[in-house]
């Protein structure tokens, strides 16, 4: 059944995608005949800094995401805490609902306040939240644990909402698909990929959830530094390649 639902989603997706038009910004690149022959090669050579910063900026977004949605399940259902699986699943379900509302909200907010400001606020809160989160999980008080589960993704949403535009805007239209994709996906290698292994190791080594809090705090520092180094294009005309020529590197 879950598998079938996946196939239904694919069919719906195909149906809708066949009916959409090409985006006007890419259409403009085609109309002006500025399509590159080797766009990926070119974006790696011309915008390596933007690609690497895009990957680093995801540290305190992608890594804590796995802690809050996956790692917490084995943490809370283990013998030390002894919560039921459904207790954790329902808490995670509420967290996903909160995320569902907050992601577009913070995306929208970044249009008026600026991407970097929202993103960096989210990263800073995440760095502190890691300690509060594990303090609540370890409190032994049922409702407090549940509250931690429900609020788990709030600082994640603050980063994830503006993130797509923050990363995508760092590249000119004719190199954007490759540049944004490379930066975003490379994060899996440094942030998301090792998250579970490192967290499991930290708990094993230090015997306390606060070790993971420190891990989250360190990731927040990395994100803050990377984000500070990124250029905020939220108020620029990103269809105009000239704005990238001057500060592309």
């Amino acid at each position, binding site marked *: 059944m879950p598998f079938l639902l996946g196939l239904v989603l694919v069919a719906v997706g*195909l149906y809708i995608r066949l009916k959409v038009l090409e985006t006007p910004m890419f259409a403009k690149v085609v109309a002006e005949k500025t399509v590159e022959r080797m*766009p990926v090669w070119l974006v790696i050579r011309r915008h390596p800094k933007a690609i690497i910063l895009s990957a680093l900026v995801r540290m305190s977004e992608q890594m804590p995401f796995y802690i809050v949605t996956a790692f917490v399940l084995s943490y809370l259902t283990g013998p030390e805490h002894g919560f039921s699986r459904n207790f954790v699943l329902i808490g995670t379900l509420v967290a996903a609902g909160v995320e569902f509302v907050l992601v577009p909200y913070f995306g929208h907010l970044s249009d008026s306040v600026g991407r970097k400001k929202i993103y960096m606020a989210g990263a800073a809160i995440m760095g502190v939240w890691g300690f509060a989160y594990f303090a609540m999980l370890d409190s032994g008080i049922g409702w407090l644990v549940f509250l931690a589960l429900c609020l788990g993704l709030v600082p994640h949403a603050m980063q994830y909402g503006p993130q*797509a535009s923050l990363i995508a805007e760092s590249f000119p239209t004719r190199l954007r698909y490759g540049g944004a*994709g490379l930066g975003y996906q490379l994060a899996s290698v440094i942030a998301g990929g090792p998250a579970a292994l490192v967290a499991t190791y930290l708990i094993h080594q230090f015997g306390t959830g606060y070790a993971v809090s420190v891990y989250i705090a360190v990731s927040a520092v990395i994100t803050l530094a990377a984000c500070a180094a990124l250029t905020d294009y939220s108020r620029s005309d990103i269809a105009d390649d000239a704005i990238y020529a001057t500060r592309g590197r």
Partner: protein
Amino acid sequence: MTLNPEHAQVALDAAGTAEHGRQVRKAAVASTVGTTIEWYDYFLYGTAAALVFPQLFFPNASPYVALLSSFATYFVGFLARPVGAAIFGHWGDRIGRKVTLIVTLLLMGISTALIGLLPGQASWGDAAPIVLIILRILQGIAVGGEWSGSVLLSMEWGDQRRRGLMGSWPQLGVAIGLILATGLMALFNAIPVRPASSVGAGECRSCSASCSSPSGSTFG
């Protein structure tokens, strides 16, 4: 091969009209569906990798080695993602966002369907885990090419003041995928199930949802 200039002109002409508004909404939905599938599958595969695949594909290994092998197939999918970003990034910037996104979605759908239909080691022998790994790589490549295009499809419509909001729609895929997968798991927790080893992988996905913790997805 590149985008037909006439089609490009249609897209440019639509700017500012009511049709433009309709297109923008359609693009937002089209992009969000893709990331939803990606994340939904991600959460389910993690569960299956932890609970069902070890017996199904690596029955002759010790449980520990079988689990590690199973997680290895999972991790391989992640290593394939930057590769997918490069391959589809090339085409996305050459022939356009729309066509590329149809290809990534098709590839994602076909590889996921085949993983679901794949028989276990018992009927296919050693070929089964090898085919599983190949399909997993294909799926990772498709997913790797999907995100960037989804975001651009939603974002590149020219409205300066709403780009942050438009770009956040495909990001909702995480929340919707998590709600669907976690909801199903919580639901199936209430229903009794057959032993996983007696059914195909597709069936096993439903079993895994019922009898598992998605601790496997910690291997993201």
